[in-house]
């Protein structure tokens, strides 16, 4: 099912949680609503579920306007951050509950529930109570309960945030698998960029209630349209250098302590800009223009990282193992084409 939202706005007495959103969610795909906490992503999810009424704008499921439709009529499945399993019911009863409400007969709903339990791999725990399950298992039960009524739309609110690191990786792959097996249009909320990057078909990046960018994960990384997008994605994070474009069209640090030659001239000069350089976007090589001093070199797992200093600016970059430069050395740098972005300082927009 395709979801279309049109000028959707949610205002609370003191904030605007979702500000004039217009976009589409692709049918049968897994989409992540990504953003820092307080960016309005959960508000967005709750409006899609029908728990929160919209202040303005419309939501369409295919061609139905569901904006004022109560949640139970929308045909959505919702998995809560704390799973919201009913503590007094067994796993089987929990999964059956939506069908019990729909007055499906008992034999049928148990059969369906067992099928769902098998899909999410909890079929051996049917008689247990939620508190006898691990966090990951509870999560699976919650997903089964959301899926049993064959929803048009599956919504997951921070589905992995209550799990420990190892389980999180396992569960995100499980969510991916379940989504691909069922082909249900799925939207999940997360503040973890890695989580969003690794399993979603596309990412909606939000900040302060504003839609920043919608794209495929890799495209978002490779081609951010705003300094916030560039900064939010990537670990180690992108290096942001403040400065101006000089007469030659190159980047000059704010305090004129260094100049960095740009591969691609934008045809502007004198503007205040932010130069974003991803850690992997630097090569050591003969450039004779940009010099950097190595402040520290260290190994993180299989990666070789270094803190370097260009003029007054400090950067964290990857350095190939082949270079046996050490602390205190001065090296020459070349920027790669990929992973270097120029943003307008005032608006944050990509130039």
């Amino acid at each position, binding site marked *: 099912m395709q979801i279309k939202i049109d000028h959707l706005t949610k205002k609370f007495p003191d904030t605007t949680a979702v500000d004039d959103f217009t976009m589409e969610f692709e049918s049968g795909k897994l989409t992540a609503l990504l953003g820092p906490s307080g960016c309005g992503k959960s508000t967005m999810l709750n409006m899609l*579920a*029908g*728990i929160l009424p919209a202040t303005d704008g419309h939501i369409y499921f295919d061609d139905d306007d569901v904006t004022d439709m109560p*949640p*139970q009529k*929308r045909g*959505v*499945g*919702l998995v*809560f*951050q*704390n799973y*919201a399993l*009913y*503590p*007094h019911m067994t796993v089987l009863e929990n999964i059956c*509950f*939506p069908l019990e*409400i*729909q007055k499906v007969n008992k034999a049928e709903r148990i059969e369906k529930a067992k099928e769902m339990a098998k899909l999410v791999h909890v079929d051996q725990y049917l008689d247990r109570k939620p508190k006898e399950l691990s966090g990951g298992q509870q999560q699976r039960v919650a997903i089964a*309960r959301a899926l049993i*009524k064959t929803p048009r739309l599956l919504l997951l609110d921070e589905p992995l945030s209550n799990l420990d690191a190892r389980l999180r990786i396992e569960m995100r792959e499980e969510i991916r698998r379940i989504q691909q097996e069922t082909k249900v249009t799925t939207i999940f909320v997360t503040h973890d960029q890695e989580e969003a990057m690794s399993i979603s078909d596309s990412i909606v990046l939000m900040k302060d209630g504003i839609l920043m960018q919608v794209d495929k994960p890799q495209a978002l990384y490779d081609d951010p349209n705003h300094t916030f997008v560039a900064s939010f994605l990537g670990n180690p994070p992108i290096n942001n250098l403040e400065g101006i474009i000089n007469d030659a069209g190159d980047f000059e640090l704010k305090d004129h302590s260094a100049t960095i030659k740009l591969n691609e001239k934008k045809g502007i000069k004198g503007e205040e800009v932010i130069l974003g350089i991803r850690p992997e976007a630097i090569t050591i090589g003969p450039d004779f223009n940009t010099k950097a001093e190595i402040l520290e070199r260290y190994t993180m797992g299989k990666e070789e990282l270094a803190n370097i200093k260009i003029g007054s600016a400090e950067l964290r970059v990857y350095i190939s193992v082949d270079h046996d430069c050490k602390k205190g050395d001065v090296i020459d740098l070349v920027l790669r084409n990929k992973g270097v972005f120029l943003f307008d300082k005032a608006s944050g927009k990509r130039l």
Partner: protein
Amino acid sequence: MRFHFDIKKFFVYFFLILGALIMIFPFYWMIVNSLKTAQDMTAYPPTWVPSNWFNFDNYIEAFNKAPFGIYFINSVIVTISCVIITTFTTILGAFAFSRLKFKGRDLIFSLMLGLMMVPFEMLVITNYTTVAKLGLIDTLAVLILPFTSSIFYTYILRNFFLSIPDSLYYSARIDGASNWKYLWRIMVPIAKPSLMTITLLNAITCWNSFFWTLLVINNDVNRTLPYGLYAFMTEGGSDTKLMMAAATFTVLPMIILFLFARKYIVNGVARGGLKG
């Protein structure tokens, strides 16, 4: 060090045993005297044990002199009705105050909290007039009617309901459950321990209720146990051993209840305090 520890333990046990004996002595004394013969009673200093532990004559005689069987049945009827009705109104009220949203909810709730400190003793004059005008004086109904709503229990249960995560509610509503269905299928089962506590505390209060009964009940057949016992004392002369038998009969159901449900009762009192 080791020696010091034992001294401490000895004192703990010594005072605990002493204290426990004082606390339960009246119960022991009640039972002992209910089994004594007329001759046992006149001994001074009083004998610590009855001459025959299986002398139930006093019970038989007390039952012959006053209809304690009827008092007992009345007490059971009043207590059970009161508990069922109050629990029902409490569940619905607590749900409205915790889960439903409506204009003036907080104002009404604050008003209720204010009324919680009004002592019942202050209300009896008007309440007597009210039930008299309804023609209910000297009926069992009048022992139930003024106690069908409890602000105190509603307050306790509302607080428990508030501790149930919102997400359970939204989850159920998204699945199409009505408020009514959600309340009885999800909230009430989760609140079972709290409801048990409320029910038990309420049952104890009901069973022991005396002041109101004293005002509105005259007829022998409508008396409950505590009032019947008091009437037995004033009307039936002062044969102490019969009175002890009747007192035992009055107190025993609550003792049994307590022994079986101590955990719930104690937890309830610890969490909310008894009705002041």
